[in-house]
């Protein structure tokens, strides 16, 4: 098994498709919750948001992101930063997610 294949930005983003926002029932990447993602050596640094401040699932989603990153080959640590600036809105969804929710803009 090639242990170097996942440790790039696209690989981490692809892995984070496995983490869902439980209320909306959709992955956090296509929902647009990931604002920034950097990979530096074996460290993944992510700045992300929630669909609403005080979201009851917030701690579980942050934990899920951390655990998914740590499960990737070559990742030694993951730093997750939560921000609500700018506030999330459905406009941040990818076209795939917008189509899923029937959003036409």
């Amino acid at each position, binding site marked *: 098994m090639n242990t170097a294949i996942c440790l790039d930005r696209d690989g981490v983003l692809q892995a984070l498709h496995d*983490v869902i926002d439980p*209320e909306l*029932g959709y992955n956090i990447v296509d929902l647009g919750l990931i604002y920034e993602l950097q990979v530096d050596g074996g460290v993944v640094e992510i700045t992300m948001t929630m669909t609403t401040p*005080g979201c*009851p699932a917030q701690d*579980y989603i942050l*934990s899920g992101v951390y655990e998914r990153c740590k499960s990737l080959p070559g990742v030694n640590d993951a730093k997750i930063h939560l921000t609500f600036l700018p506030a999330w809105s*459905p406009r941040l969804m990818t076209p795939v997610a917008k189509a899923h929710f*029937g959003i036409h803009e």
Partner: protein
Amino acid sequence: MTVLSNRLSRWTLPIFGCALVNFVAAQGLILAGVTWPARSVSAPGTLAAVHLLVIGWLLLLMLGALFQFVPVITARPLVSQSLALATLIALEAGLVGMVGGFFAIGAGHPALAMALPAGGAVVSLGVLIGCWNIGIPLLRSRPLSLPGRMVLTGMAFLLLTVTLGFSFALAVTVPALAPYLAPLLAGVSDHALAGLGGWFTLTAMGASYKLLPMFMLAPEERGIAGKAAHVLGTVGIALAVGAGVAREWSVAEPLRVAESMGYAAVATAVAAFLWDIVRIYRTRKRAVIEAHNRAAIAAFAFLGLGSALAVGFVMTDHPRAGAPVIVFIVVFGWLGGLGLTQLYKIVPFLTWLSRYGISLGRGVVPRVQDLVRERRSYPWFALYFLGVLLGAVFGLSGSSHGFRACLVLITLATLGLVIEYWRAWRGHYAQLLHGESSTPPFLPTHRG
């Protein structure tokens, strides 16, 4: 990374369970024929059933929801998870005393009737604890958003409602206090307006303003209609209740005018709120909405119906004639209906948090939507709201048998929905999807 779960209200699900048991018990009293319309509105059975409904069902439901909801709108934790349990115990214990006290008064047992004020005191204690638990994070989060302000206003009316109710209990059971408090007894409608309008309706409006846009991806900014609903509702109810109570001691004309102006302001607030709700539904970005939001439309319609009927009865100078039916519509159609529909989302969501949240990022987890089968809920919601509508018609016509027949529909629908909540909590449908077999903890498994 350790999962911090202080955003999960650990006693909310048990509180919901107790509330549903009380709801079905109250329906049982109505079916047994010991309440209005088979008996008078002031019959002990009626009073027992009404308090089972408003304290046992609606108050527990609202507080249980707020224990989870207030940390969402304030981004601050409750004062204590344990205080939520204390609230549950006090409200349940006090309610048992109150219901027993009502029946003791009916049976002519003055000594046992003291259970009414004693139970009322314990309920008041539970309310104070509950208000403390959610009031502190609210007060520490100023300036508050509109939903937060509405909840805080609602809590002030809750304290007023409890104070009036406790005064009634003392007036009817403590002879030495009767001369001072007896005039208040004519103000039962003020007690009901403060509770159903000031507390439950304003708070439910505030919760709707946060949750509906969140679930349907609609704009959260409410503008003038939301502010009008809050201000007019608050001022109107305060005016109507204040003038109404004062009129028990004075027949001054300005008090009558003030009371009428208060009712007019409340009706305008309801109209503004419903207009705003229509706007939320129409401006939502989520094309296909979930069952709880679809079914909630009927609850909003019952709020409009109750308000329209109230206006109609007041304008024809027969406000007391329509009061029982309006209370029925508000308790079962608006508040009860909204509660049952929102439980269909909240129960699976809390179940997901307590059962699957820890597994997120470590493997495949179901969505909240996988914990329910929405198509199974629609017949129960339809049956419930049909029962309420027909019950209101039979209530207006004074047909006790017809009204109780409608209660059969309502009870069947309630039990059907309870089974669906149970299946969601047990992960019944998720098991079918993922082949799981474990049951989530109903009671908290660790301290908060």
